[in-house]
């Protein structure tokens, strides 16, 4: 019985540890995708300005409140615009950006298909 208690205790301890680590990873992932608006070409994660430090605290606070990654992006986009995100979302201004690689891939595939397969036949 005593062993069981120890096993359970260690099980919980390790679990808390990993949930903390997961949130920490998410926090790093989010802050790496946020542009520090007062710096030049730096992410919030990399920057040490007052603005970036506040944003780091805010992201942690929002995660503690239970907001998802997407909700945090929406919250910040509402205040600072799309520019704050490094990874632009799929929308009417960015559809070309996202679809172009696929388009080139398809065209390339057609060229290969035409050159090597149709010609062989």
């Amino acid at each position, binding site marked *: 019985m005593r062993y069981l208690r120890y096993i359970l205790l260690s099980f919980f301890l390790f679990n808390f540890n990993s949930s903390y680590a997961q949130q920490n990873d998410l926090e790093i992932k989010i802050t790496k995708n946020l542009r520090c*608006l*007062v710096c030049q070409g730096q992410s919030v994660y990399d920057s040490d300005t*007052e*603005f970036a*430090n*506040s*944003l780091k*605290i*805010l992201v942690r*606070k929002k995660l503690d409140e239970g907001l998802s990654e997407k909700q945090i992006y929406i919250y910040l986009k509402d*205040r*600072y*615009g799309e*520019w704050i995100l490094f990874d632009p979302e799929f929308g009417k201004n960015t559809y*070309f950006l996202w679809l*172009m690689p696929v*388009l080139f891939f398809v*065209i390339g595939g*057609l*060229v290969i298909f*035409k050159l090597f397969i149709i010609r062989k036949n």
Partner: protein
Amino acid sequence: MKIRIFPTIVFILFVIIFILFFKGLKNSNIYVPKANINKEIPSFKAKLFESSEEISSEEIFKEDKFYLMNIWSSWCVPCREEHNFLENLSTEKNLDLIGLNYKDDNESAKNFLKKLGNPYDIIFLDPKGIIAIDWGAYGVPETYLIKNNMIVKKIIGPLNKNLVLEIKEIIR
């Protein structure tokens, strides 16, 4: 005929992409921060500067009145420069000045106001800079003109003569 269709499609696609990129060359790539006006002000709770009592934004901002919220700090040099303009605006009767003390040391903030005068009706504290982000601020100083819980005008950076005149025009 079968051979001709494919090159034509590729050619047309190429032309379309070329035109899109060529047009894009002329777009300005200078980033200008969006001044979010006609937006509702965020609701928040903050500690007061004088008494460190907690106050909610609903208690500060009432309807049918103009408010000028200024984000300031004693360590910020441009805030010193714009202080005279704030003093000037504090004489306006239908305008309440609200100060948001951004990431500041309480003692130096008090010294700052003692030295230069206190134009604010209410000051509240933002020691972590989170409330400023809620407002969509980039740093200090920043000023918001508010009426009916809406942001009428947002000024990024210090106030100047022309901006003070413009604010006076709006509140008249």
